[in-house]
């Protein structure tokens, strides 16, 4: 379908200039050079696909561990919260102790996330992704 952009009015000169460009002829070695690269590519061994099946048990275990950690964190937090309302003194000691490992877990998760994002970025730039 051709355009209805009014080529005969004030855009005419632009259309004539941009539309009337001479054809560029590829250099004589272009075809050979391209086919050489294609042949090189074809001769390369195929990349090994990620072994999802083998990795699946590990992924499931990691997810389960993560879920358990999350559950424990919430559970401990709730238990401590209940104890806080009973005795103020005990609260200060136990809550502090319970939140300390939670903080470490959160920090570890953040570091993992950051390193994963960084690795993706680097791999994306290098054309691996």
């Amino acid at each position, binding site marked *: *379908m051709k*355009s209805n*952009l009014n080529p005969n009015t*004030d855009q005419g000169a632009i259309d004539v200039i*941009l*539309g009337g460009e001479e054809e560029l002829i590829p250099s004589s070695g272009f075809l050979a050079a391209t086919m050489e690269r294609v042949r090189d590519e074809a001769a390369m061994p195929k990349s090994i696909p990620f072994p999802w099946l083998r990795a699946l048990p590990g992924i499931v275990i990691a997810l389960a561990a993560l879920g358990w950690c999350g559950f424990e964190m919430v559970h401990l937090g709730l238990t401590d919260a209940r104890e806080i309302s009973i005795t103020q003194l005990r609260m200060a000691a136990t809550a502090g102790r319970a939140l300390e490992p939670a903080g470490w877990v959160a920090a570890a998760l953040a570091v993992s996330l950051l390193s994963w994002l960084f690795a993706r970025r680097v791999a994306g730039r290098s054309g691996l992704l």
Partner: protein
Amino acid sequence: MSAEEDLADVERVLVGEVQAFEGIVRRWQGPLVNMAWRYCRDRGRAEEMAQEAFLRAWRGLAGWRRESSFSTWLFALAANVFRSELQRFPTVNVPLEDAAEPAGPATQHEGLARKLSDDSVRRAVLALPMRYREPVVLYYFHEMDVAATARTMELPEGTVKARLARGRELLRKRFPHLCEENTPLVGSTLRPEKEVLQ
């Protein structure tokens, strides 16, 4: 160019005949190099970008779902390659406002002066923001076919028309003499509007 030939070559490539890809490169090298040239206006780079597009086509040939013609698929793929190449390494151009307009006696060397003037308009396209530059480049590459431009850009026709209109409007403002009939290009004292393409 024959769609049947493309299809036959694709089938042969997919069963492992690497040599069959040569037919595809032979038929499409001209259009792809010309398309790349319009994106960067550098012959050497245009050939490199076209070669990269062919290599991507080779890798992704199995992904062509035959819903569109081979040429549509190839042009869309090439446009993606050229776009990302130019994002990685943008073209280095003299700012438009710094480029001298052709000047001199109107009666002499008119052909050369017109060629220079035309060339400055073509180079001006590269100074357009990418969202307007690409529709302009592809619209004229596809011989003013909006539908083909939209297919290559994988955008709705309305969007392409709007961006095209804006791109042409920017060019028209940059080169106002093009809109005035019988205005001599040579010896013109018109100065570009600096803010237009910034």
